[in-house]
């Protein structure tokens, strides 16, 4: 209910939802780099799979030679040969 309200409000005000709520933002740059903002931590970390916790779910990066390049409280950058992104 709250998420829907935020979504509606952000849509009406033309403001990105992730700027005032913990809505995750995922950026995929080519096939080599993915950046997840507003994450909730690493749930799984292997060469083929990196699972990042987000609000109400997780984002799973699937590929090969995956590596967490940089991680801060807000964002995590994953580099490698990315094959797929799964939302859970």
């Amino acid at each position: 209910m709250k998420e829907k309200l935020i979504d509606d409000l952000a849509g009406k005000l033309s403001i990105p939802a992730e700027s005032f709520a913990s809505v995750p933002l995922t950026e995929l740059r080519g096939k080599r780099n993915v950046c997840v903002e507003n994450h909730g931590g690493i749930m799984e970390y292997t060469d083929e799979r990196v699972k990042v916790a987000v609000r109400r779910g997780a984002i799973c990066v699937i590929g090969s030679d995956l590596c967490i390049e940089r991680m801060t409280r807000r964002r995590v950058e994953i580099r490698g040969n990315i094959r797929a992104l799964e939302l859970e």
Partner: protein
Amino acid sequence: MYELINYFRGYVRLRITGAAPEKCLNALSQEGIAFWGIIKEDDLHYSLFSYTADAAMVNRLAMKEFCSCELLAHFGFRAAFRGLRKRPVLLLGLLLALTATFVLQGFVWTIQVEGNTTLHEQEILRALKTLDIAVGTWGANINSERTKNQMLNLVPELQWIAVNRTGGYLQVLLHERAMPDKDEDPYQFANVIAARDGVLTEVSVLEGMKLCAAGQTVRKGQLLVSGYEDYGQMTRVVRASAEIYATTWHTGTLVMPSQAMEKVYTGEQWTQKTLLIGEKRINLYGNSGIYTDNCDKIISTRVLSLPGGYDFPIVLETAVYRQYRLVPRELSPLIAQEQLETAWERLTVSAMIAGEIQSTEASVIRSGELYVLNANSTCKEMIARAMPITIADDGAVAKENTNDGTDYQRREN
């Protein structure tokens, strides 16, 4: 940019070992600790970079997550130069190098004068010094435009000058004013007279009225070419010019003592080194450097210079003193004759305007403690000499010359 920031902040490589190292990563990110370059070595070992200041916090959080944290290496500026604290001489050298790079280049260390032909470099440097520009001057105080104007006033021979400074190098470019030829005679009208008695051999008149001919015998002071050119109806006064050669005779006597003082080196010698930095002399020897004994002083200098040819104002001067004593020595007649003849030849040539000695008859006799040379040389000599004619205010020519052989002179007389 990140690399530069990381380099100056300093960072470490850490290895986190535990059953669930990713939990440790989550804890670090939750605490706001920056980390990067995370490599999963295996399921139990992760290694990562973090700032040096955060290393203790990482260790604490790792232990909180039941992991251990191992410090693998230090990186960054402090790590690179940490060893210098134990090597003060190297640190001092580094500081000196930095000082030389950023501070010393603010001063003028080399002054290069270019474009001077008749003016000596030292004259320019002296003039610059009166404007407080010398080796060691703070470069920012040099105003090129003002220096140019002041130098043009100080040195009238200059037509233009430019003073350019690049770091510690001051380039002075100049162009000299075209000055009138000093060899040119300052007077307008002149006769040509004989400088010496002789028999004329060649007469070549460029300007004026010729009053002599080859084969004629002339006396010293005799008018050879008149500055008055007689055209019958009028007389023109000119500056007579001629090249007149004659056979002349030089007779004289030279005297020299039969004993000469000769240098005999004692074998004792000293070396004194002096360091010249700019205009400062730093003596690298203990005593005053003043010797009362007879000494020959031979100075050699070594200038510190770059391979490109620019000289630093640092010079090592080495003076070698060789002590000698003067010993009277009897001259042999042969050596005495040789020295006297050489001196006679030099004296005769210097007495001529131009020309050469054709033959010399000389005899040397010893008279008591003296050697006496009596010599008579026959020379081919240029005897033409200009004698100025002065003109009075009312336009009349002053009677400086006795007789120039012209109608004008005859009428005047």
